[in-house]
């Protein structure tokens, strides 16, 4: 482990941003549409670049209460004092922050119909089994807003409402439930957290807000029904999920279809809060445009995701399947503050061609008898680089903390790289921490064996990879798991033989 690595190391864990969220947020940002509200797109264009005025205008546009405007401004002023971090393991051209639009610039020149869409993209939809009516949206075809799923969404909203569950765009929550937003926003990821999170705090466009009242078990996977809305969203997404005492919620973010977006930089923030005896399960399938085979284009995904197990016996699990983006930088983390709380992290990160991923988790044990589990499965193909970076920190007061980490790497071909950086900071002698790591390869023998039984190379690689990552796929809700496995094969197409 070299010094460079240590810079990103979880020591400065408060500085680690998690960019995955951006994607999610974008996906969710079209909520107006989800809920049957049609956004008025004919907004005047804001100038490029960022200053206090722009921040105020964003807040005003959204008719936010005073406290939000102030919060955004504090974040903005803090951001101005920050320097963009340099990530030694990631190579990318610098982002010119003065040359970005910070307020929804609606897409203008999208394709008019599927005939104008890249046939390769359509072929991928076909392989993933994306329903026809969703393809247009995902491909960015300008579709008039009203679609069947609007009524579906409304039905679900009614059902959730009866249980007292709030599930709405965060912009709506800011207006209608300001006391909840004020109480929880920024409590897990403060606006000072890191460069990207700070920027997000100043300019976030929209995102999801979820509140589950005490004792309520949310009866459905949130957001899986709304996948279709995931297409056009802002580049700075913000999600806040609060599970009150004794409640349960499972939230799905993202989409298996490849998502394109003209915004290259994505900096989202996700905050999860679980109170006493509450459980949050947060699953992500992320497939942003990764750039072409030569590594040109593609999304930079810098996400800050963090969960707080604030109450006793609370539990947060992160499950992520990452196949997209040119650059992925995210570390969904858990702060295990409540006694007996549990944090879990299940991850499959696949990189191909010239993709770079630097991902992992941080488990911060603060309470007594806290437990954490980390299962990370990296898959590298082509000329890609895949790094796992994980921190397990046991505070001096965290008696009897336990962690088990397993970090495996699978290599396809011999031009890719896999790196594992586990960091441990143990300040309590009663801690039990175990770490295991393996590296393996997909061999030609394995592929031939499956070929000889009638299975195509593409399916063979998909099977081998799914077998390897089984423990993680098992954590996903059924429908998502099936799609995620198909996604593996598609993402690895052409990487073998």
């Amino acid at each position, binding site marked *: 482990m070299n010094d460079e690595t240590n810079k990103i190391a979880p020591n400065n864990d408060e500085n680690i941003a998690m960019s995955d969220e951006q994607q999610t947020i974008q996906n969710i940002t079209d909520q107006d549409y989800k809920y049957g509200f049609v956004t008025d797109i004919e907004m005047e264009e804001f100038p490029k670049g960022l200053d206090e005025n722009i921040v105020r205008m964003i807040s005003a546009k959204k008719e936010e209460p005073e406290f939000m405007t102030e919060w955004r401004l504090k974040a903005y002023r803090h951001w101005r004092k920050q320097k963009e971090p340099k990530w030694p393991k990631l190579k990318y051209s610098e982002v010119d922050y003065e040359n970005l639009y910070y307020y929804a610039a609606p897409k203008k020149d999208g394709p008019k119909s599927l005939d104008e869409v890249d046939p390769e993209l359509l072929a991928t939809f076909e392989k993933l089994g994306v329903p026809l009516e969703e393809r247009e949206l995902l491909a960015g075809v300008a579709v008039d807003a009203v679609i069947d799923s609007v009524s579906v969404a409304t039905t679900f909203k009614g059902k959730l409402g009866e249980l007292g569950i709030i599930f709405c765009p965060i912009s709506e929550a800011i207006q209608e439930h300001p006391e909840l937003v004020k109480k929880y926003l920024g409590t897990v990821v403060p606006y000072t957290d890191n460069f990207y999170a700070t920027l997000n705090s100043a300019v976030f466009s929209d995102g999801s807000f979820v509140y589950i009242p005490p004792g309520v078990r949310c009866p459905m996977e949130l957001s899986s029904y709304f996948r279709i809305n995931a297409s056009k969203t802002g580049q700075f997404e913000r999600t806040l999920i609060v599970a009150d005492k004794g409640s349960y919620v499972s939230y799905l973010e993202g989409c298996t279809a490849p998502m394109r977006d003209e915004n290259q930089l994505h900096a989202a923030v996700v905050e999860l809060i679980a109170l006493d005896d509450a459980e949050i399960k947060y699953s992500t399938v992320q497939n942003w445009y990764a750039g072409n085979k030569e590594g040109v284009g593609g999304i930079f995904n810098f996400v800050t995701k963090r969960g707080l197990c604030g109450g006793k016996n609370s539990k947060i699990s992160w499950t992520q399947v990452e196949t997209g983006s040119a650059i992925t930088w995210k570390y969904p983390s858990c702060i295990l503050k409540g006694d007996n709380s549990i944090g879990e992290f299940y991850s499959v990160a696949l990189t191909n061609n010239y993709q770079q991923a630097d991902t992992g988790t941080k488990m911060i044990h603060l309470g007594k008898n806290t437990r954490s589990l980390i299962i990370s499965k990296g898959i590298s193909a082509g000329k890609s680089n895949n790094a796992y970076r994980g921190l397990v920190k046991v505070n001096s007061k965290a008696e009897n903390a336990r962690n088990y980490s397993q970090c495996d790497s699978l290599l396809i071909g011999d031009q890719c790289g896999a790196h594992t950086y586990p960091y441990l900071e143990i300040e309590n002698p009663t801690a039990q921490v175990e770490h295991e790591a393996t590296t393996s390869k997909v061999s*030609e023998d394995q592929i031939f*064996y*499956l070929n*000889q*039984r*009638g*299975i*195509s190379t593409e399916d063979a690689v998909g099977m081998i990879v*799914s*077998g390897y990552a089984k423990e993680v796929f098992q954590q996903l809700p059924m429908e998502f798991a099936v799609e995620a496995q198909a996604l593996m094969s598609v993402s690895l197409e052409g990487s073998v033989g």
Partner: protein
Amino acid sequence: MLSIKNLQVSVEEKPILKGLNLEVKPGEIHAIMGPNGSGKSTLAHVLSGREGYSVDAGSAHYKGLNLLEMAPEIRAREGMFLAFQYPIEIPGVNNTSFLKKALNEIRKHRGEEELDAIDFLGLIKKQMKLVEMKEELLKRPVNQGFSGGEKKRNEILQMAVLNPMLAILDETDSGLDIDALRIVAGGVNKLRSAENAFVVITHYQRLLDYIVPDFVHVLSDGQIIKSGTKELALELEERGYDWLIEEAESKA
């Protein structure tokens, strides 16, 4: 069914098969014997489409199709099966779901309906009895942690489920204890029909007591130097290969 003419194959510029001829008709069982390194597995691999071999001359046709131009999975779907000399482990991939996928690929190719989980389970349970395999092995990842003999039985189970037209068994008897040998051979005999054919590669005439071949061929240095009936295997058992090789050389 299988017609190989003057097949010449090399690996990394090194000639391995040097003009091999073989005709296999439906209903026949052919045994191929020969010293280590003579090219038996190479033949099996080339016929089933493994990469890394260069075909320098000759042809191989299967059911009238130009075998050498077909992708390996298409050969399999057309009914060719190779029982591997060294079966491959595939971690995490469940043995049953692997086999179901394989069968359904073949059925799809033939224009037949795919089997659902229940029908498939019925089939596999029935075929497992043929090879007397422990049910527990179905729940495990493909070949992972299987003993040598269990791997071989798993090959035969796959064969029994996929029901190929042409099966090539590459030293399936090696590493089997005497009871297993009888069971595996029994499986082959039950699958045998007037429509299908077997090419059995072996070093031991013992297997041929159980699977009685119509023809025995001796492969040496990349060529078939002698073909005969099952008596040839007995003679080889007694006298070894040297006399044959000498005989072949003196003819050349």
